[in-house]
């Protein structure tokens, strides 16, 4: 009902008052309603509450003023060394991050070729969209492109076929984290699904293979696997063949994540009631059909939190590349901190790296929440 309509029905007396029974409803008095009431009841309801509130306000105030002062108000944003920063302000020295930004992003990637990294980042985003949004128009074509994307990105980043070759040991910084993280995430999910199904298979050989693979991978820390990739594998390839270290590393990270992924998905599979399997069989679906059409869509939906959890863990594990002598965003930070011009700014570096990881991981977790809500078709 609009307010204008209501006015027409009001009967007003000559003195400006209302006839009995026609007075409009007034809002409740502010003492029992609204923000002031809420504050009084919830924050100052008793002596203890009041004390706790004041204490919390005091802590928040001092923390926020300190942080804001350190991070923004007293911070130096330009300069060519730590001393330049200190001359201007005694807070954070963001000039350091600015000074090294391209190193943080591209690592040792040759400067004239860096557009290729930029381009593959942009193409990556375009490749992710069709995977994430089901309602996208022309999604089929988009998905085909997404499947081709790893090849395109590999060609762009490594070169060959018309592009200048860039050795993978020049990869570094944020780009290296993204390359490893995205590869691991993209390949570990399908491998994990196959492993999870294999573990439940009725064929003993398939089952034993899958179970032993999963158990071995999960029984060994990632850092050990990376050492194996760096050290042992070179004994098994003929001398002279250069089996790229980064590729070995990518394989190990993917296998590692697949092992965990398989167990997460198995959890989902086990939550599907037997009736669903039987119903699929009763409809005459073959094994793969019933998996694809009936079981997996439900199982994956249940496993979303676990899957994203594994993705996030994998993404953060990419900083372990230091064991094979590659500098990721964190490693670049450490090697830059040893420059005497900038030494002693570790807090700034750690905050910067933390923000990068937080941003990446938080977006993953928000997406998974959105997806869970969208797929929530249960009771």
């Amino acid at each position: 009902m609009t307010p204008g309509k209501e006015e027409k029905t009001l009967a007003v007396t000559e003195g400006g008052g209302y006839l009995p029974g026609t007075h409009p409803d007034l809002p409740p008095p502010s003492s029992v309603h609204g923000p002031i009431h809420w504050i009084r009841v919830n924050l100052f309801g008793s002596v203890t509450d009041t004390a706790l509130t004041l204490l919390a306000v005091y802590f928040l105030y001092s923390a926020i003023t300190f942080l804001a002062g350190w991070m923004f108000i007293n911070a130096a944003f330009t300069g060519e060394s730590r001393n330049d920063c200190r001359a201007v302000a005694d807070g954070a020295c963001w000039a350091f991050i600015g000074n090294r930004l391209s190193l943080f992003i591209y690592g040792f990637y040759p400067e004239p070729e860096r557009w290729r990294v930029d381009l593959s980042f942009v193409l990556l985003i375009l490749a992710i969209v069709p995977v994430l949004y089901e309602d996208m128009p022309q999604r089929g074509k988009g998905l085909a492109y997404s499947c081709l994307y790893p090849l395109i990105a590999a060609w762009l980043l490594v070169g060959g076929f018309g592009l200048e070759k860039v050795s993978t040991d020049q990869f570094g910084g944020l780009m290296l984290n993204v390359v490893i993280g995205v590869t691991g995430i993209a390949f570990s999910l399908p491998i994990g699904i196959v492993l999870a199904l294999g573990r439940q298979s009725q064929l003993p050989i398939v089952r034993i293979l899958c179970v032993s693979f999963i158990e071995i991978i999960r029984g060994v820390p990632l850092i050990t696997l990376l050492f194996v990739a760096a050290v042992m594998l070179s004994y098994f390839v003929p001398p002279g063949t250069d089996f790229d270290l980064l590729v070995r590393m990518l394989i190990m990270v993917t296998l590692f994540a697949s092992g965990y992924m398989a167990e997460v998905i198995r959890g989902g599979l086990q939550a599907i009631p037997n009736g669903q399997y039987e119903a699929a069989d009763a409809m005459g679906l073959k094994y793969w059909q019933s998996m694809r059409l009936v079981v997996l869509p439900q199982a994956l939906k249940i496993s979303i939190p676990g899957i994203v959890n594994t993705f996030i863990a994998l993404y953060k594990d990419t900083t372990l590349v230091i064991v094979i002598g590659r500098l990721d965003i964190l490693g670049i930070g450490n090697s830059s901190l040893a420059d005497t011009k900038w030494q002693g700014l570790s807090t700034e570096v750690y905050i910067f790296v933390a923000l990068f990881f937080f941003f990446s991981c938080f977006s993953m977790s928000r997406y998974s929440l959105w997806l869970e809500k969208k797929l929530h078709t249960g009771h």
Partner: protein
Amino acid sequence: MRIIISLFAAFFMASAANAGTLEDVKKRGVLNCIVNTGLPGFSYTDKTGRWKGFDADMCRSLAAAVVGDGEKVKFIPATGKTRFTLLNSKEGDVIFRNTTWTFVRDVDVKLTFLPTTYYDGQGFIIRKSKGVKSAKELDGATVCIQTGTTTELNLADFFRANKISYKPVPIESNEEARKNYLADRCDTYTTDASGLAATRATFDKPGDHMILPEIISKEPLGPVVRHGDDQWADIVRWTVYALIAAEQHGITAGNVDKMAMDKSNPNVSRMLGSEGNLGGMLGLDKEWAKRVIKAQGNYAEIFERNVGLKTPVGLSRGLNALYTKGGLQYSPPFR
């Protein structure tokens, strides 16, 4: 079956092919050099991602000798735990990463240690306001110490030998130590004296802190190669000696061409290849040493540019002076 046999053959060939690093490097055209992930003055990256520092320059000198171009180096950053693994898996050809030469590493881990490029020793840094003048007065002190290093063992030995007690504060990295020390969570921080000097240089008030006079251990730091490739070890060894001898004979990056023409000093002529063929005996060419010196300068130039008194690290030559000036740097004759 054939695949299996060829795999086995490959396996044994890989194990047998321990020699021949020189051929590998020449064929590759790039020297793979293992350096620290970040140590002020010794190895760090600048704005453009170029590796700099004392150790990085030594890598370039070696590359100049072997590949012919001081820029043909692939730097492999390694932590204390991964350096030997990376060397043994042949990811790297040589380690220039402040590695202490010890009996166990030399004999039991089967590495070949080459001439010491930097003589270091473990020291203590402390606030002047604490009023401590000697490490022997540190009874009951809390000490920040990097775990898993030789310094940890040296510290225990020193306090036991002097019958005094301490409380260790275990930490992981130099940067963390710096933070803990400045926050006064430990009375003193102990590591190699060069590291202490470099760390102190970054304090807001370096003058308030002092490095105690006691140096409680010997830390000879130098290049390391795989055991069993003597030719390669010789090349690295004599590259380091060429840098030291060049300082002794006054050969610098600037005057090396002129010195090579001047035949008045037979020692210099032999080294620079204008007389005889010492380079050929190493499996290199005559002018190898000339290129070494031209690439990054002689030992003194490398030292002063990276860690010398005019740099923020501010180290004096001390033990690293030439033997003629009271130090330990000594090159056997080039003949």
